[in-house]
């Protein structure tokens, strides 16, 4: 978990996998700072 403490993170989620906002919530609890988050559709 300490891997993300005080780290700036860029999040790219996948609609049919794990969407961006869900990744954001996990990373925030691990101490990361989300600087950009987006969900993309690859199909």
């Amino acid at each position, binding site marked *: 978990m300490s891997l993300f403490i005080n780290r700036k993170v860029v999040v790219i989620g996948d*609609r049919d996998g794990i*969407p961006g906002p869900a990744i954001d919530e996990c990373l925030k609890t691990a101490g990361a700072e989300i600087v950009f988050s*987006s*969900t993309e559709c690859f*199909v």
Partner: protein
Amino acid sequence: MNSVLKGSSFVLVHAPDMLIHGGTTQTTERIVNPDSEYLRKLPEHLRSFEEAVAYLPNQVYIGNKTPTDLAAAGDVWFDKPLQSASRFGSFGEIMPQDEFYLLLQTCDVFDLVMLDKDFVKETLPRFEKHPLVDAELLALVREGVDISEIEKAVNNEGAEGVYQNGKLIGCVKKAHDIDVNLNAEVIFENLISKASCALSLMHFIKTTGVEKSAIDLVLDCSEEAVGDMNQRGGGNLAKAAAESAGFVNASGADIRAFCAAPVHALIHAAALVASGTYENVVVAAGGSIAKLGMNAKDHVKKDMKALEDMVGGFAALISKNDGVSPEILSEFTGKHNVGTGSSPQAVITALVTEPLDKMGLKIADIDKYSVEMQNPDITKPAGAGDVPQANYKMIAALGVKRGELERAEINDFTAKHGMPGWAPTQGHIPSGVPYLGFARDDIMSGSIKRSMIVGKGSLFLGRMTNLFDGVSFILQANSGAGADAPDEQAGVSEHAVKRLIAESLRELARSMGAE
């Protein structure tokens, strides 16, 4: 009373030149990297029409092969061409590009499509032989113009070139000098959607045997924006396509919700019919030129053919209950709400288990789930994974969490209750609906009882919200209790019994009054 799925059609248009000239991966590459190796190599990676017809997933799409055939053929299909394959199938057809250009012109009511007279002369004899092309449609094909006129329009007047085998054979003119919503590129894109929707409507009439005049409403659920500078996306592509297909008694309206629109539209259609507002509603969509070759960079890099060369289309008829066709359970739909959340668990709960809980059913009580049915032959080489499998695994995982499945059963569940994907990556086209034709057949033959159709949409792509969207409904074997028309085999209907009792009571009242 539930409405029913009365029939459906599925069409593909082979579009290799449209891939090169209209796919946004290619149009973007021409702007940012015009001399790229990719653009140079791409033409060598295009499929011939025969190769597209011999491709197993395309044969499943038009109903000549089944999802079971596809599963039995392993998990890679592009290297296994069928030895014998037909362009026509039980659900529709695969139309070659040159014939589609003539169809495109028949759908152009503003004289914006110009075709080379030699091209028309060469293609017309084959178009004339098409089983759905009648004299009325043929009369809309114009004789053609000299190629110099087309070159002038493309080079000097903002027209969009139309190509066949790399050669300029026509153009689509702009419909306004200034308005970008009516420029040649947009008009071409919208006409392609309209014409492939109209082709789906034509096939649907043939596959269902329903009279054109019986259709009350068409709902178009594609992803194109039809309009001008004052009403971008003003719409009603539905009514435009219905006009081309000759549905004289139909009105139309468009439903837009990115890729989730087909399932939204089917839920709307089912409710409109169940409420008695309309008797026959068709949900239909044409395809997208923009998405052609979306993953072609990876296909070329891996020395594969560029498999995203198919424009897709479909149509489905929702009618009042005939006592036979599969019912759409309008009271038990699933939907992803604004406040649902985005975790896979929240999404699958909203779309799958909430409607099942309302019915008192478990996850395994749905015999077949039709989710995002993108063809993994296309997506896996591009690093986008196997989309249907990812969706099935999420459904199964929720089943494990709810204690309805054992963890060790996940793979068996996805094989039994899922299917491999066979639809082209045309956005709305793969979204839940490709199974409709098989679902009706499978339910009516008794091989399955229930299917859930799930559609998802990437709303965030429009930059108005970070939300995604999803909706679902259940198709179920007809109970036989809901037929509107009296069923002779079932004896006297409930309605008839009530009428007889009422008449007897009136007779009794009359006789008592007389005394």
